[in-house]
């Protein structure tokens, strides 16, 4: 065999090539491969196609949308006029700022509380460890119910404050368990050597445990952030002031109840912009942050989900 052939046999498969099959495995039939491909492609298309329509319609001019009879599938003369209109002040701009603010503040708060609790509970054998853990775990089995929670938030005077969007659902016991399981998997020798060198618990958490847990911390941060970003129910029952509403609630008004957003309605009436493009642009604003960030964290999902789900 000459050198080129050996190299050819030893090289890594290109991305479109299948890695080598074990000898005992039979070659798949052409029909089987095609069938699998079609199903998988169809499933991915079912996810991507609606998003494509939403994005393209939001970028289309009124003329294109009318010609397409509503929703646009093939982009023509791309325009950002809907976004300019929405982001030049008014209801949607304010709602977007509220959503970003609540998401940032809420995620920071939730992560701080959860990481501390997870570390505090990660050393089995510490005093009160079982009791504290049980207090948290028990809440996974029962909820107090919607009405008593509503009355409590009201009694605490949280209605019509942004705290009502953060505090009632600030900690997720499931997320704490995931973090805790991960922290418990960190080599105890490492922590002990730090302790012998004189590091306290705060320092160990900050300089050893957290840097080693970047993956799971990223996953849980994403979970919390998505939770805050997607939440609309608390705002709908605890807030009465329209100006305080986050983006999701404004989206309900605009798209589901077909109301034109304040500040843009004039432009729609005079026919400058299509109302549909405005609706789609609001939807893009709601989905974009999530769609952009989650693929970066996705390689850690499996690890994070499993440590939490299985070990408890």
């Amino acid at each position, binding site marked *: 065999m000459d050198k080129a052939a050996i190299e050819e046999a030893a090289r890594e498969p290109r991305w479109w090539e299948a890695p080598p099959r074990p000898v005992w495995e039979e070659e798949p039939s052409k029909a089987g491969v095609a069938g699998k491909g079609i199903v998988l492609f169809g499933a991915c298309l079912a996810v991507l196609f609606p998003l494509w329509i939403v994005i393209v319609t939001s970028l289309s001019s009124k003329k294109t949308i009318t010609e397409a009879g509503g929703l646009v599938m093939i982009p023509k003369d791309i325009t950002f006029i809907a976004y300019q209109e929405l982001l030049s002040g008014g209801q949607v701009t304010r709602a977007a700022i509220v959503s970003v603010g609540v998401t940032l503040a809420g995620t920071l708060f939730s992560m701080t509380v959860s990481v*501390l609790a997870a570390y505090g509970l990660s*050393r*089995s054998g510490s005093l009160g460890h079982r009791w504290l853990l049980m207090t948290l775990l028990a809440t996974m089995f029962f909820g107090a119910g919607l009405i008593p929670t509503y009355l409590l938030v009201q009694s605490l005077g949280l209605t019509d404050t942004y705290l009502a969007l953060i505090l009632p659902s600030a900690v997720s016991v499931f997320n704490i368990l995931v973090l805790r399981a991960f922290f418990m998997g960190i080599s105890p020798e490492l922590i002990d050597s730090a302790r012998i060198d004189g590091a306290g618990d705060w320092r160990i958490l900050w300089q050893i445990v957290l840097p080693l847990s970047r993956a799971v911390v990223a996953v849980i941060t994403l979970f919390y952030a998505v939770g805050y970003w997607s939440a609309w129910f608390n705002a709908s029952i605890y807030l009465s002031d329209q100006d305080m509403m986050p983006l999701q609630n404004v989206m309900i008004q605009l798209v589901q109840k077909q109301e034109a957003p304040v500040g843009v309605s004039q432009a729609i009436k005079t026919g400058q912009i299509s109302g549909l493009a405005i609706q789609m642009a609001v939807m893009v604003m709601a989905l974009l942050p999530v769609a952009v960030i989650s693929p970066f964290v996705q390689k850690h999902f499996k690890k994070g989900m499993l440590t939490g789900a299985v070990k408890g």
Partner: protein
Amino acid sequence: MSNSTVPRSRAEAKKTEAAPRAADAPGEGPEKELSGKLSLRLRFRRDRTLILMTLPAVALVLVFNYIPILGNVVAFQDYDPYVSDNGFIAMLESPWVGFEQFQRVFADSAFWDAVQNTFVLFFLQLVLFFPVPILLALLINSVIRPRIRAVSQAILYLPHFFSWVLVITVFQQIFGGAGIIAQTLRQRGYEGFDLMTDPGIFKFLVTAEGVWKDAGWGIIVFLAALASVSPDLYEAAAMDGAGRWRRMWHVTLPALRPVIALLLVLRVGDALTVGFEQILLQRDAVGPGAAEVLDTYVWWNGVRNQDFGYAAAAGLIKGLVSVALVLAANKVAHFMGEQGVYKK
């Protein structure tokens, strides 16, 4: 778990000089014996930072998960929110009515409609939703090109992170009366339709939305179970003459069985909770007859109609049955040798 405890206590013993000298000897016993010799005061001094770190979370849980349990007393009251601006004082001042609210709930045919809708939806999801992630995971697992696997997983995970508002809006834009399919049909001269306001198919619609949003996310657990199967098993089966399908039946499916059983049990335990936010958002479009489930029933009577005592009674019934179901489900999980939500 246990391997982390021994060195910790030994290091602590050096630092605090609190533990008996024997702790420094090699081959020392497990943590339990050691901590038993430490006095409570010393253990507190050793662990106070850890306890302090846990307190914020515990405090939040106590306030927002435990205290409201007491608020369920309004189910036994004729709660009047106008007695006082403060809900707590209103609770103290409202008259007690015993089980009257519960009798009202049980006498209401709308409540039983909600019960029925809840169960029908649960069974639909069990039959039409539950198998989808398993099949998808098997499919993806059989794809051997890593790049295709990674890309399709990334795409399928995506909708899980969209809010329900967005998911429902997307469905509306496609299947609704002004949606893309109906529009196209009308342009071609056919009659349009509106799936979003049709009570007859509402439950299927809700299930389909659930599949679109979360079926892709559900494959993670199954893929992990599949990844843990040793390739040797497949090879051995192939050597014994098992074809592709026999290997699937005798190697792949047994590997998935514990995960499937566990998730199934847990889902049954959660049977009374079917898509609260999702259904609430679409309740007005199809009407309560088809869309009302137990959670939305409580929301409607309590938050909307301000009949707090009545709604709390309905919520309490649902809550108690749910707890019973979850505990029973965990018992079954333990019986099958699984861990369930908590350990035995």
